[in-house]
């Protein structure tokens, strides 16, 4: 057993009405890749925020290399070489790589006057990027880099401050397959250099591939710490959710109903190229494709969030004109966006406000809104979706990620729309909550709703869809019935050059 770098003992954190952490233990050895695993709301993020000094614990103790940490602030954590990289990257898009890496710690020519030594910083940046085996120009603007490269810049930033403990919070959720490989290669390299890594992920195959040991949290409590080599994926699932998940994809087959949506030759310059598709009542149409293939752009164009250049849309056989999401809503078609926080929720508002926000007219009584009925409907949604919230008047920002996702679903269920488009409905949520989302989809199809589901997770596409469409570079490159599709067939269609660049 190696030297213990970090030890957290009986760490407790209480928020109003919730015990977020209940006597958590965590022991991380120097130079290991330690996985932190748990469902949403299990307390992973809170634990990390205590470790990085953003929150103060209400009880327990923290030791770094055996020394008790009495007070902790982000500055002190950084001084101890503890560097977090969050899911949402903290880079300034308008500045270049060098400026971002040295943000706040610029090297100066003349200290007093704040004159920057640009050359020295660029050289150091080059060194760091070379070490990471990254071919990125120090003068490239962040906004011109892909997500994978941006993450490498974040890691470079961590290296520039003599990192001892690197915390990666779901780093792979926005990455493509090759980028994940690249990230893992870098993580192994850092590990060889003696950097300790805490890795948070929901993807069990990744956890098995990269981790040395794993600590599982559940409902704010410590469950276990194990060598990853000694446990199976099934074991991990059981520890996380506290029960067996027999069926990860509880698909219910419903009889095919009438055509609900038909898209004909839809195009939007540069992103969507002549796409046609049909969705039927009671059925799930899966849309597969790599990140950046134009899937999100396609569904945004369908509901009128982005303007189309050409193409026709028919709803229940009738040609309709959709130029704004409100038109789509009028015809009963809604989109649950991938980016919940920025595009789906009113974080400062209550659960009730959010659940009723898409359909306030339903509550209009003469001039005023009927508060009692609003409340009744919200309570109904809280019960049927099992949203964990203290009350209907709780602000959404106080809920966990999985529960926030349920609030978004609740908002749309409350509209009684009959065409539901989900964009990455289970991104960033854990196994247990995923099954709940699938059950909602089943319930919708059972009610005769037509569902379209965009996803980059192939098992999900295969497990939940009835019919599958593959998109590459904005174009439909293949179509399968679920029974005839395989991961290999989808992948090969997803990597076909759709020819959008050659078009025009």
């Amino acid at each position, binding site marked *: 057993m190696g030297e213990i770098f970090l030890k957290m003992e009986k760490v407790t954190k209480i928020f109003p*009405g919730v015990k977020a952490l209940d006597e958590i233990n965590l022991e991380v050895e120097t130079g290991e890749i330690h996985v932190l695993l748990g469902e949403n709301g299990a307390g992973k993020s809170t634990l990390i925020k205590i470790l990085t000094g953003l929150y103060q614990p209400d009880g327990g103790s923290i030791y770094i290399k055996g020394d008790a940490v009495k007070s902790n602030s982000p500055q002190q954590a950084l001084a101890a070489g503890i560097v977090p990289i969050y899911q949402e990257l903290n880079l300034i898009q308008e500045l270049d790589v060098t400026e971002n890496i040295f943000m706040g710690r610029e090297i100066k020519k003349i200290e007093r006057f704040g004159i920057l030594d640009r050359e020295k910083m660029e050289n150091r940046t080059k060194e760091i990027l070379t070490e990471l085996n990254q071919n990125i120009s120090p003068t490239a603007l962040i906004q011109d880099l892909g997500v994978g490269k941006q993450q490498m810049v974040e890691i470079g930033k961590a290296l520039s401050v003599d990192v001892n403990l690197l915390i990666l919070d779901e780093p792979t959720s926005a990455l493509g397959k090759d980028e994940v490989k690249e990230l893992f290669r870098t993580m192994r390299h850092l590990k060889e250099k003696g950097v300790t890594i805490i890795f948070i992920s929901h993807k069990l195959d990744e956890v098995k591939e990269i981790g040395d040991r794993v600590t599982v949290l559940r409902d704010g409590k410590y469950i276990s710490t194990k060598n990853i080599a000694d446990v199976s994926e099934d074991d991990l699932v059981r520890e996380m959710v506290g029960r067996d998940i027999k069926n990860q994809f509880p698909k219910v087959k419903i009889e095919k109903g009438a055509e609900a949506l038909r898209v004909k030759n839809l195009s939007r310059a540069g992103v969507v190229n002549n796409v046609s598709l049909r969705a039927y009542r009671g059925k799930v149409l899966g849309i597969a494709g790599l990140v950046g293939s134009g899937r999100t752009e396609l569904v945004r164009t369908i509901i009128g969030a982005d303007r189309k250049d050409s193409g026709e849309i028919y709803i229940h056989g009738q040609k309709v004109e959709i130029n704004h999401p409100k038109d789509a*809503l009028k015809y009963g078609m809604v989109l649950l966006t991938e980016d919940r926080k920025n*595009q789906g929720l*009113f974080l*400062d508002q209550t659960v009730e406000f959010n659940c009723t926000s898409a359909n306030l007219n339903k509550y209009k009584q003469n001039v005023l*809104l009927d508060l009692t009925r609003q409340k009744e409907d919200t309570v109904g949604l809280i019960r049927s979706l099992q949203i964990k919230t203290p009350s209907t*008047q709780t602000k959404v920002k106080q809920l966990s990620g999985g529960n926030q996702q349920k609030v978004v679903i609740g*908002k749309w269920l409350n509209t009684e729309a009959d065409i539901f488009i989900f964009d990455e409905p289970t991104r960033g949520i854990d196994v247990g909550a995923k099954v709940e989302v699938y059950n909602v989809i089943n319930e919708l199809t059972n009610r005769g709703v037509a569902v379209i589901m965009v996803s980059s997770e192939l098992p999900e596409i295969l497990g939940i869809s009835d019919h599958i469409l593959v998109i590459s570079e904005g174009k439909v490159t293949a179509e399968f019935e679920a029974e005839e599709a395989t991961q290999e067939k989808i992948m090969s269609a997803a990597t076909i050059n759709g020819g959008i660049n050659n078009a025009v």
Partner: protein
Amino acid sequence: MQSKEAVGINISGGTTNWRKLLFDKLGSLLGLIVLMIILTFASPYFLTVNNLTNVLQQASINALVASGMLLAILTAGIDLSVGSVLALSISVSGIVIINFGLNPVLGILACLFVGGTAGMTNGLLLTKLRLPHPFIATLGMMNVARGLALIITGASPVSGFPDWIQFIGSGYIGPIPFSFILVIVAVIIFHYFLNRTTLGRHIYAVGGNIEAARLSGIDTDRVLTWVYTISGFMAAMGGIVLMGKVNAAYPLAGLSYELDAIAAVIIGGASFLGGVGTIWGTLIGAMIIAVIRNGLNLLGVSPDLQTVVIGAVIIGAVYIDVLRRQKK
């Protein structure tokens, strides 16, 4: 106090959380009460019926203008043009009533119409021309409206209004100024408008997260256009009270009123980031400003120094609010 709120599943309780309403307001309301207690001891004239009714009257115009400003700030915007729009509205009204001999009732309606139209223009500039921030559209309108007011009046005041218009600005019902009764009516209407109507709730949605609002099928352009229309309308309302009070319409009326209105909204606890704020807070904000001005007058502080004090109060009030939020 927070934990008490959150513990236990309260999904069957009453429909309005009065306790929470009071708590959110407590900060600025408490400030107002403390201020009044201090002034009561500092000056023997402060706590007299005469003086207090005077304060209410002073607060009235700002409270009306600030109600419209609140809407703009709730949508994470701002309306810099309210002072100028007020001047233009009453100038038009004064000219049609006094110079053209139009029926004064129609003249007052013209005032409101001009205010609403100027405000709607702000909204359309913002949403149709896609100007990057309401600061731009309303800064432009601020100059245009002021200039128009000067042009149409030939830069001189118009006066001699009928008694009932003067009554709006300076009359009393019992000890209460009529203008303040107008304010109370407006505040109650705003309270229901913001909390109990579709448009009101959409205003909070647009301010809280405009992209989520759009994707929720809310016509955000329509909401914003309404917000600035109402803001212009409320500026004209404030103008009517001013016109009645001084029995004149003059093109330089309402200078820097936008700043007092913004101050009232912010002191009243609204967030510049949008989505947070109430009409009651704004009313209290307007009262605080009026009480401070009145108190400093009673204590013989020069108007120049008063401006300094008001500035410090704005910064102090927002800082206290920041501290309060951090505690949460």
